[in-house]
């Protein structure tokens, strides 16, 4: 329970708060389909009232960059970073929006629509946090002005505390200082839990080339027959993609998730091609 009744007024649900109209100095977008502050654009898109495909993102970007230039070097970093968030989301949405969306015939388009919804959800989520952050700002500001009793303890009570037991030598203390002042490492994703041995794509490609040139045509299933390690299967598949890039083979798949058939199509192939193959995967 908040002790003061005024709190009730200030806790407004984020959903209907939405007072984002800083039209006076905020960034405005001027497009054939829309003219107004950026926040409103987002608002409309999130409410499906404006089709994202109608918005020329490059134009919005151009205008924003012009706006930033006008602001000068001491411009608002917050606003710039916020724009990046929004632009990235718009771009995602636009990609989803431009993709064909006929009737819901196959799993693929369902997935696309889901992705689109997900992006809307993402935008809404970001907006929710952005809006509620103003509640945080208000509360923090209000409490900044409050004064809690915080007065040093009287000497007579201080001496009531049990005597300090000190066990550190000067060297221990110095060691502690080193620990305390060493910047904490930025967290990295530990890989220790991964034990898979490294598999060379180049080696697997050599095997694929040998098998495929011999047979002319093979299914992927046949190509990996007898292989138990998932890593080798993956590497063999990646090597096929690489060989495809070199136009060394073609593949054919009659239905989704159906049999994948590979055909050797290279007219000229030298072992030298193998030496550079899969270089993208090298570090």
């Amino acid at each position: 329970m908040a002790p003061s009744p005024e709190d009730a007024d200030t806790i407004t649900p984020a959903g209907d708060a939405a007072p984002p109209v800083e039209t006076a100095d905020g960034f405005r977008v001027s497009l054939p389909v829309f003219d107004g502050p950026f926040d409103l654009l987002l608002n409309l898109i999130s409410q499906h009232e404006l089709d994202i495909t109608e918005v020329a993102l490059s134009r919005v970007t151009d205008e924003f960059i012009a706006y930033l230039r006008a602001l000068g070097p001491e411009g608002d970093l917050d606003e710039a970073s916020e724009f990046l968030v929004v632009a990235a989301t718009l771009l995602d949405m636009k990609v989803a929006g431009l993709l064909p969306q006929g009737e819901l015939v196959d799993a693929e388009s369902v997935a696309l629509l889901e992705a689109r919804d997900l992006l809307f959800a993402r935008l809404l989520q970001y907006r929710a946090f952005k809006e509620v952050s103003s509640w945080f700002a208000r509360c923090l500001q209000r409490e900044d002005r409050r004064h809690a009793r915080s007065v040093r303890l009287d000497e007579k009570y201080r001496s009531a505390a049990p005597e300090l037991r000190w066990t550190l030598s000067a060297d221990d203390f110095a060691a502690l200082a080193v620990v305390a002042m060493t910047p904490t490492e930025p967290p990295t994703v530990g890989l220790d839990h991964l034990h898979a041995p490294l598999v060379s794509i180049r080696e697997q490609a050599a095997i694929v080339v040998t098998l495929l040139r011999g047979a002319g045509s093979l299914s992927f299933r046949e190509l990996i027959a007898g292989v138990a390690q998932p890593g080798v299967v993956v590497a063999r598949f990646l090597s096929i993609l690489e060989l495809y890039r070199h136009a060394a083979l073609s593949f054919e798949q009659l239905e989704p998730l159906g049999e994948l058939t590979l055909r050797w199509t290279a007219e000229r192939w030298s072992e030298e091609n193998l030496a550079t193959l899969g270089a993208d995967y090298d570090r």
Partner: protein
Amino acid sequence: MTDDTLTDDAPTSDGAPAGAASIARRLEAILLVVEEPQSLVSLAAAVGAPVAAVRQAVEGLVADYDGETGGPRRGFELREVGGGWRLYVREEHDDVVSEFVNTQAPSRLSQAALETLAVIAYKQPVTRGQVASIRAVNVDSVVRTLLSRGLITEVFTDADTGAIHYGTTDALLVNLGINSLDELPRISPLLDDGADGFEGEVVR
């Protein structure tokens, strides 16, 4: 201390048990020296009384200082913030006190810090990566600022990934002037949908 009960049961005389007044007096003594909000349990231990009696005494003091028991409305009040009780200057006198102590207010948090704080508050425990994916920007320096302000803390480190999970502190509640995370404005309808999808994305 027995003589207390003779003289000071005026404000809580309405049906309170005999010892209640003296619990209130001991609470006043403790509240004068504490530097952080004290939970009822901690107060009960300090004054050597059952929690229920302490709760009643605390409520009595709140009403007492608010001038609802016949006395004046004090220049201070007893507030519950951050899960505990603490004496505060009554809000209407804050200006007088500010002028007197002339303390510099801590610098305002940036908009980026506020938004990051909001994400952590609602999604805790949460990693930096997860926060970054919601805000779509790098949040490392902002998280560091929030840590040094004591508004968030490291809750645990994932044994497998080494990712640190962050949560908010009681100090945040105190700074917001609220008593628990339940008092945050509700934004769950939005989050329930979006969040689930994102968890998957974070893994990617």
